[in-house]
């Protein structure tokens, strides 16, 4: 991390990602509507993905894509950003999507059952 | 074999003496009480007349086997107490079965009779009898405490649980235990009040309230046996006290003087005391008498 503008930008990316995660958690923890809770989860997922990609990135790297002539110019391999986080993010996105889908399905069922989306009123199971 | 026969003969003699003396004491009791109450009172031999009358009754009724045997239980206690307590020192006509450590035995055998009689009284089905028995047993728990405290004090102080041992101590030192262990003596005498069941501790057989309590249903020869047993027991207990605290007796005359002197204490106390309720009596025994008993133990431990 250098002190150039780009370096600060790098921090900014991390900061943004963390901020997004926190916003998502805030939504999950504070908002009373089930839908907003699910949105909060989704937002924090996105923030997380952002963070992961940011970690894998470094200055001046190219996309980790095989293209014709890639192998000839061997030097470009080192210029490539780390592909692993990106692969992970892909997986995480898929999983996050699945979870969100499940959550939304449950929200529908909860709404049908309780007639409300207020999480404070859905407390049949307690103690 | 011969010794056994002699023993039995001696026992019979002891029994007869005790019977006569005990009966006489009972008669004197009635007389003295009457005189104090400014009455003439029955003659001193009235008890013998009563006994004769009872024993000559044609038939007697009983309410079952325990009732039938109750007097026998009572008699066992009286006679055993009499036989274990040394009546006279060094006298062949008054053999005794005493042995080392007999004080504890005595404590227990003395409770055997009342319990047996209580069973008999219980079987009569007369509520008065049962009430009397519960009172009597409760009272027993009361006066046993100072009595045992006194005995334990003696056992500790003289390292023996035998009556003859304690008598030997007195003979050896020349002092009666009454003086060397005064607190034990006081506690024991106070316990004696309860044993005799004279006023103020006569609620057990309170004649006007319970129709004499445990003996309400007893008559004829049963009452005769009970009466003689009571007389023998009175004598045995007094002899025990004399042995323990007054140095024993060498001949019958001294024994009678000592026992009668001792007998006067509860007798005179009874004349001036109104009747206690049971719980009052129990608490009385657990009060000063037990305190003296504890003092006796303290004395025994310290000296």
């Amino acid at each position, binding site marked *: 991390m250098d002190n150039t503008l780009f370096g600060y930008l790098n921090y900014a990316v991390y900061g943004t990602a963390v901020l997004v995660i926190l916003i998502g958690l805030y939504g999950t923890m504070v908002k009373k509507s089930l839908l907003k809770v699910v949105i909060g989860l989704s937002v924090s997922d996105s923030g997380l993905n952002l963070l992961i990609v940011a970690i894998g990135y470094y200055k001046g790297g190219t996309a980790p894509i095989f293209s014709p002539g890639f192998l000839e110019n061997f030097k470009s391999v080192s210029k490539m950003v780390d592909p692993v986080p990106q692969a992970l993010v892909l997986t995480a996105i898929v999983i996050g999507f699945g979870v969100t889908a499940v959550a939304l399905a449950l929200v529908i069922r909860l709404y049908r059952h309780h007639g409300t989306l207020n999480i404070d009123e859905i407390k049949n199971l307690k103690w | 074999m011969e010794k056994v026969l002699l023993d039995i003969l001696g026992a019979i003699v002891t029994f007869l003496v005790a019977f006569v003396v005990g009966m006489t004491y009972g008669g004197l009791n009635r007389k003295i009480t009457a005189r104090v109450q400014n009455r003439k009172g029955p003659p001193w031999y009235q008890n013998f007349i009563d006994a004769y009358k009872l024993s000559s009754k044609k038939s007697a009724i009983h309410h079952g086997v325990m009732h039938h045997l109750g007097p026998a239980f009572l008699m066992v206690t009286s006679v055993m107490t009499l036989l274990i307590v040394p009546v006279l020192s060094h006298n062949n006509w008054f053999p005794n079965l005493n042995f080392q450590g007999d004080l504890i035995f005595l404590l227990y055998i003395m409770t055997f009779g009342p319990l047996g009689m209580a069973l008999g009284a219980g079987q009569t089905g007369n509520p008065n009898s049962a009430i009397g028995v519960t009172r009597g047993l409760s009272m027993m*728990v009361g006066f046993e*405490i100072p009595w045992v405290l006194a005995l334990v004090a003696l056992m500790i102080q003289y390292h023996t649980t035998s009556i003859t041992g304690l008598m030997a101590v007195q003979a050896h030192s020349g002092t009666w235990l009454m003086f060397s262990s005064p607190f034990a003596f006081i506690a024991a005498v106070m316990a004696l009040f309860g044993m005799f069941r004279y006023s103020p501790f006569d609620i057990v057989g309170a004649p006007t309230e319970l*129709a004499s309590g445990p003996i309400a249903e007893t008559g004829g020869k049963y009452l005769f046996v009970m009466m003689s047993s009571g007389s023998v027991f009175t004598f045995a207990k007094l002899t025990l006290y004399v042995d323990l605290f007054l140095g024993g007796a060498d001949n019958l005359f001294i024994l009678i003087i000592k026992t009668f002197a001792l007998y006067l204490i509860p007798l005179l106390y009874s004349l001036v005391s109104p009747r206690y309720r049971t719980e009052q009596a129990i608490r009385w025994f657990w009060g000063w008498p037990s305190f003296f008993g504890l003092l006796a133990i303290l004395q025994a431990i310290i000296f």
Partner: protein
Amino acid sequence: MEMIHIIFLIFLGGAVLTYFSGKISKVLQDIFFLASVLVPAYLFFAYVGAGREATLSLGGITLIWGVNHFSWLFSLIVLGLGSMAAIYAIGYMKGKKRKGYFYFNFILSIMAMMGILLSIDLISFFIFWEIMTWSSYLVTIYNGHDIQRIGIKYFVFSAIGAYAMLMAIVIVHHLTGSFLMSSMINFYPNMSLSMQIWIPVMFLLAFGVKAAMMPLHVWAPDAYSNAPMAYTSIFSGALSKMGIYGMVIVLVTMINQIPQGFWFREVIAWLGGITAAIGTLWAIKQDDAKKLLAYSSVAQLGYIITGIAIGTELGMLAGLFLAVMHALFKGTLFMVTGAIEKQTGTTNFNEVTGLIRKMPWTFIAALLSIIALAGIPPLGGFVGKWMLYESLITSNHYLLVIVIFFSSTAAFLYCYKFLFGFFLGQEEKEWAHVKEAPAVMVVPMLIMAVMMFVLGTFPGIILKPINSGLMDLGFVDSFKHLWESSVILNVWGNHVVLQPILYWIIGIFVFFMIFLTWKGFKTTRYVSTKDISSSGEVPADDENLTFSVGFMQPFMRAVAPAMRRQIDKYYNGIADGLESLFEFIRRIYTGNGQTYTIYVIVFVVIVLLFKNILF
């Protein structure tokens, strides 16, 4: 395959077989039941002598079982009383439901007790201890009456005790590297002072619970009175003795090795004394025979504890002799109560009365055991009491003597209450139909009553095994020197002192009995209990003259201040407090998903904040 293995296998297989054979035939079940108690008992006494050992390796731990004279003595109690109670149980359980359940747990209890006695290592000791606990618990709740309170209370106390013991066992294992009891005892003097205090305390907790020692006794009255009487007779007679056994084998031998053990023994002895007094007082108050006997058991166990806690040879001898006697008379008394319950359907003194002419044999058994319990001379109880007093006096426990004597005198009150309540008093019409209990119930009671008489007359019969048992524990042979050193100074081993006295007692009794009975002297005549002097009039047949309510009221009034406080109430207070605390704890789970999320975040934040301390 040692004989010990076979015995345990028979117990175990017999229990299972008995349980399932009930599905086929009730008679078969009874036969299996009797066989699985009596056959091992026979095998044990016939083929297993002192010094036999057997091992079993389980889970990397070698379990060792063996017999010495001391455990042989207690086996006598367990198997002897167990056999009697088993025979009795056949009659008692006839026509009752859950027979298989009862038999199963009965056999398992006896097996567990034998296991405890035979265990040489602590793990098998613990295993059998726990089996004993749960099998007895299962019988305790047999009636289904108020079990959530009574049963759970029993089990909680037992479990606290057992877990304390488990802790002690594993700590000992940590210290010595071995589960052997002997290595623990040998290592004990080398432990640090805190361990020297805590190990016995933890063991004491376990044994004290089973032996119903004072602050831990609150389960006993309920449990004893709630179990079927056929079981209670071994529950109180033998099972509680396991606590005594443990105290002797673990505590007395262990603590005697260090001088500070004096204080320990002192505390236990006093606890025993207080137990005796409290148990007696509460026994007098009871109106139900089961409860009365239960409290009386607590009191009697108090004497035994005091005796063994004194720790002198004479004290041990007294305690163990009383233990044997207690097994006999309390076993019989519970059987008597069971017989009456069986015949009349109730054990409340206020309801049942005047059975003496209907159940004479039961009465005789009851009478003899009561005489033994009260410690009145011709029967065995007296011998034990006497030795107890002697040992207390010689070891300078003067006040304790008074406490013990007080409770043993006050015991007459409940003894009388028991006999009067059931057998004496008015013979009401209501109970005119009552018959004597079947022979299978009466005979065991009478056998035990006879044993009591024999042991009272010839105490040496049982004192000799006790003595050799104590020698196995490292005590000196008391027959040689004990009597010289004690205050008693008699030669009891040869029965020269007590026997003439007893003959005298019997002679006098017989003489006066004949005197009273002899028709030639004066005739006697039986009249019914309605024919009494009642203010000069004869009461009518339907007039109820039974006196039983508030029976010992005068005495209870006298001791009322002592009984105002109940330990039970304090325990209940603690239990209620805990339950409310738990109720509060479970409200942490609010039911709101968001709260849970907040918990997660709070957890992370807290751990992050304290990470330097934690990691």
